[in-house]
């Protein structure tokens, strides 16, 4: 049996498709004149679960580590620490060798042009991965044509074209078709619509929603556009400087953000109403340098409600929701932890 069809669900619906524990990635700094030996702490202790069939979005400012998380999950870079389980199996173990795992996880990047080989026709680009995995040429080409259909590009018109003959939106559809060619279970989308015009963005977002249904996919969706995230995500992970600030169901996070950083980020959205323009920016300053993150809560240097406890020790994610809709809503903020010593934290009930 060739490994070119979507593998069976092994762990059952309750088993998260992805579990990452204690994930960390430090990029060592090049030794300069002063022999630094420091490192960019791009991801620094991240736990995360992606449930089967859901869309988990990661948001956060530039440089907070979103793409590093996706590259770690894709096995493109080795982690400094931590492990990843896929459908209950440890990635890289005998039960799930890296090669088998990598077929089940595919990625679509922002730059639609750089991800395609300019010398391959569209048809060849899409048929190539399954052929590498042993599918015959005829079947692979047939599959490529089906996928072109699925992404809304008539095979008769597009199969023989080359990347430079396509618009940005069309190229991004090709990238999506190619990611689907190995029948993956998880697709990591790293800013998939950021380079596209609004009218094309709408087409690609609709397409991604349709394909998810049609192919039974799970998405990890990275975007800096909070409106797009609100539109597509089931759950949202908010990252700040390599760590999780908040995670939870999208509606709960957008309606009642728990972390002051999430509140600032959400308030930074454009108002879409010229009569309700903001007067002051919700967040000021830039994120600190990830080489020397501030002690305690990483957000304390920009936080409007920071108190001494916030620079003393680092808060961990803790449940904050109390309604059924907020199940699984967690934030890492001392102001939300009873007894933490933060004046806004409700007193601990005995």
């Amino acid at each position, binding site marked *: 049996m060739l490994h070119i069809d979507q593998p069976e669900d092994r762990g059952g619906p309750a088993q998260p498709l992805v579990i990452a524990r204690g994930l960390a990635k430090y990029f060592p700094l090049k030794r300069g004149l002063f022999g630094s030996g420091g490192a960019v702490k791009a991801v620094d202790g991240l736990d995360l679960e992606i449930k089967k069939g859901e869309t988990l979005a990661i948001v956060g400012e530039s440089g907070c580590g979103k793409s590093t998380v996706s590259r770690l999950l894709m096995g493109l870079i080795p982690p400094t620490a931590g492990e990843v389980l896929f459908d209950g199996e440890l990635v890289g173990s005998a039960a799930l060798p890296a090669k088998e795992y990598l077929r089940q996880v595919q990625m679509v990047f922002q730059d639609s042009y750089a991800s395609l080989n300019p010398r391959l026709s569209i048809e060849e680009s899409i048929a190539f991965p399954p052929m590498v995995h042993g599918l015959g040429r005829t079947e692979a080409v047939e599959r490529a044509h089906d996928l072109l259909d699925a992404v809304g590009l008539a095979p008769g018109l597009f199969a023989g074209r080359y990347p430079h003959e396509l618009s940005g939106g069309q190229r991004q559809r090709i990238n999506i078709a190619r990611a689907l060619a190995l029948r993956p279970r998880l697709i990591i989308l790293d800013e998939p619509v950021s380079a596209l015009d*609004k009218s094309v963005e709408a087409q690609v977002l609709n397409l991604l929603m349709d394909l998810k249904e049609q192919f039974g996919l799970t998405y990890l969706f990275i975007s800096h556009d909070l409106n797009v995230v609100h539109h597509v995500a089931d759950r949202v992970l908010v990252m700040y400087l390599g760590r999780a600030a908040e995670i939870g169901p999208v509606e709960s996070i957008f309606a009642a953000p728990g972390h002051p950083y999430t509140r600032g980020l959400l308030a930074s959205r454009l108002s879409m109403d010229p009569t309700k323009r903001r007067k002051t920016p919700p967040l000021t300053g830039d994120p600190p340098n990830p080489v020397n993150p501030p002690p305690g809560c990483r957000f304390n240097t920009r936080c409007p409600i920071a108190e001494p406890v916030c620079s003393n020790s680092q808060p961990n994610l803790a449940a904050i929701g109390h309604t059924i809709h907020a199940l699984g809503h967690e934030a890492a903020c001392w102001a939300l932890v009873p007894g933490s010593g933060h004046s806004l934290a409700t007193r601990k009930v005995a």
Partner: protein
Amino acid sequence: MRDDLLVLARDLRVKFTTGVNAVNGVDFDLRQREVLCILGESGSGKSVTLRALMRLNPPTKTIMSGTLELGGRDVVQASENEMSDLRGPFVSMIFQEPMTALDPVFTIGRQITETILRHENISRRKARRRALELLELVQIPSAKRRLDAYPHELSGGLRQRAMIAIALSCRPKLLLADEPTTALDASVQIQILLLLREIQQELGMGMIFVTHDLGVAGEVADRIAVMYAGRFIEEGPVADLMRQPLHPYAKGLLGATVHEGSRGKRLTTIPGAPPDLRDLPGGCAFAPRCTEAEGACLAHLPELRTPVPDRAARCIHVDDRPAAFGERLAS
């Protein structure tokens, strides 16, 4: 001519020797203190229009025609020297990528000082003092120390501020902005938009701001011009246009924009793709994609129609009854 008119454009056209018709008859006025946003998708001609205002399109490959005046001075026929006199003291530009405007080998302070000295006959010390004031104006923290910083030592947001400072160094009356916040995070984007709006009002400048994001226009514009295939297909006050666009393309763009409340719904899309600018259709360039199109749309380029005072769209389905608004109010 009213003397607060900063820009007058009539049937402005820009064609490239490659055969691309990038700007195909643009008319507009810009007055002092006014902010016009040009909203359009990739390739619609926004940047070429903006560059035409400073005559920065490659001179040997560009054919410019029509009327274009900056502060009453003709731009189409002006000599290179006359243009140099305009650039800086009258008009300057900021870009999406600050590194295109910043020189990596000189400090921020040096770059601002040199720009001032090129145009004004003042001492280096005075110029440096102005540079410091400019960095404070654009709200760069520890401005004094940042005068001696090199561009690569600044974060993306600070670099953008430094570029704005350089653009303001000769106190222009007109600031052109080509998607200056497109590459930035939401949190930094809103900071820069608020800063630009604040400075524009404080200095009483006119501003033309190019963007593909309606939300951005909503934060800074007084008026919006929607551009498609090198033409302004609709123009009007920002609130009216965002609440109720007139032109089918503007309506489509609004519907396709992901917004609060679109969750769980399919987004409306615009079928097809923009026309080939080397070979434009005869009539309305949007007609081939327009659900409301009919034969007449392709026969002639629709005139600008004015259903209510102060608003206009190039679509034959838009009423042309400047009186209609008053009548409706009266009834």
